[in-house]
């Protein structure tokens, strides 16, 4: 596991040694502020909670997570450093886990920097802190899911733009699969088991349930197993490219 930690540290420091981290932090905080206060009408609602804040997280992640993850493998492949990395005495799963955890931890740092919004509602009223903590946990889990998907897509190409565009597309499918428009499209012709399966993939449905303060073990298992499966897929993709 020390190999994974070595990769984790290098990756995490690489976010902060380039402008990527700072630009991402500024954009995320700016957009989440706009969404929460202007579109979500945090003040006008007159309720001391963070629902308007969490409501827009899937849509923010949809654009920003592929931007973080697109470089994960594609940049290594483009610059040739992947040859160096994969010939070090660190196993491929350890490298993949190290890279993923660094991106996830970075995202957690960025999202945690929104704590002034939490302080604001605490100052204005008496929010249920348990619900807010659940919201943050759900947001972190969902970010992990998006990152794992984009990590695999980044492993498949050396072109970061392709990794980003396909990443947005796949994340979009996972985001909207539980929305009424998608489900109605399926309901007209597919059996109910298919509709239920499509609905169960939805990030929004599961995330909204968590933000209401109920951390259902099935939602946690869904996100963690989704992360595990996509990470495994990225390892397989890299391994396949070694043999190809």
């Amino acid at each position, binding site marked *: 596991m*020390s*190999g994974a930690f*070595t*990769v984790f*540290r*290098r990756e995490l*420091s*690489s976010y902060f*040694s*380039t402008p990527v981290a700072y630009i991402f932090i500024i954009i995320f905080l700016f957009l989440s502020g706009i969404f929460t206060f202007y579109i979500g009408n945090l003040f006008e609602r007159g309720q001391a909670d963070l629902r308007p804040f969490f409501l827009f997280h899937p849509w923010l992640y949809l654009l920003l997570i592929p931007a973080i993850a697109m470089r994960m493998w594609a940049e290594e492949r483009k*610059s*040739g*450093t992947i*040859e*160096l990395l*994969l*010939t*070090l*005495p*660190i*196993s491929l799963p350890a490298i993949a886990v190290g890279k993923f955890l660094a991106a996830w931890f970075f995202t957690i740092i960025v999202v945690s920097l929104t704590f002034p919004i939490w302080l604001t509602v605490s100052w204005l009223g008496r929010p249920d802190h348990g619900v807010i903590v659940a919201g943050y946990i759900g947001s972190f889990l969902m970010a992990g899911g998006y990152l794992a998907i984009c990590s695999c897509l980044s492993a498949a190409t050396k072109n970061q733009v392709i990794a980003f565009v396909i990443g947005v597309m796949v994340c979009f499918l996972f985001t909207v699969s539980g929305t009424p428009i998608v489900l109605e499209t399926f309901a007209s012709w597919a059996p109910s088991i298919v509709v239920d399966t499509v609905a169960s993939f939805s990030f929004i449905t599961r995330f909204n349930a968590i933000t209401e303060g109920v951390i259902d073990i099935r939602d946690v298992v869904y996100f963690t197993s989704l992360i595990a499966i996509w990470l495994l897929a990225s390892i397989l993709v890299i*391994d396949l490219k*070694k*043999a*190809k």
Partner: protein
Amino acid sequence: MAMIEIRDLVKRFGAFTAVDGVTFNVERGTVLGFLGPNGAGKSTTMKMLTGFLTPSAGRISVCGYDVTTRSIQAKRRIGYLPEGAPAYPDMTPAEFLGFIADARSLRGKTRRVKLAEAIERIQIGPVLHQPIDTLSKGFKRRVGLAQAILHDPDVLVLDEPTDGLDPNQKFEVRKLIQDMAREKAIIISTHILEEVESVCTRALIISRGRVLAEGRPDEKNNGWWFNDLYAESGRLDAVFRKITTGAFEAPSSGVQHKIELGKTDSETGSVCNPPQQPSPARVGVSDSAAKKKKGEKA
């Protein structure tokens, strides 16, 4: 036991066969020069040897460890400078070498000593805290070399280690390889034939994925033998061209081919200087039987 054992190595990329049945051993104390035109399969062989690519067929072992099945143990014993010396551009050499030291599980005092030794040996002290993307090509390559030798590996694989370096830097790198040669098995790939003469103790000429000839220095003279072809010192290019352009076919039944100084382009296919001293025995590529016959006639 050979430090590197490669048996019937094959690598296919779709319908294209990049490496086609390569077999060779490298012992400790050997510096093996890997020669061949572009696209010959040199880098692909090195990538498989270091575990970056998986072979389509064949076996590679490093210090007794199979590179495919016991890759971590094998990789611990290899120092590798990939083609173009890739490194993370946003890191400084100090950070980059620190990362490599961690990845190679160097800890505490050993870590400090090995880092100091590599920095001293490769002379990157002046740029240690400068981002790698601001370094000159020569320094970037030196950083790559420093990471390859950092853990004092038994096996060194250097893909074009002097490419893009100025003459002084080339001299330094060759000296470094010579200094390390005794305790290690070293493979270098190069286009520069003088490099083979100056640092290598053996050479393989590879083309279209196959080993065409094995070269060894002549113990008595300064030249090199490639199978039965002899090249005088400074004239390896003629033999190289003969072998890789297909003008030479593998000799059979003791027929010896010899390349000597003083032939014209049209005769040897090489760019040779006019002879300093006239010699009646100056022939380009001749076989010894014909030569003998000629002597008898005289």
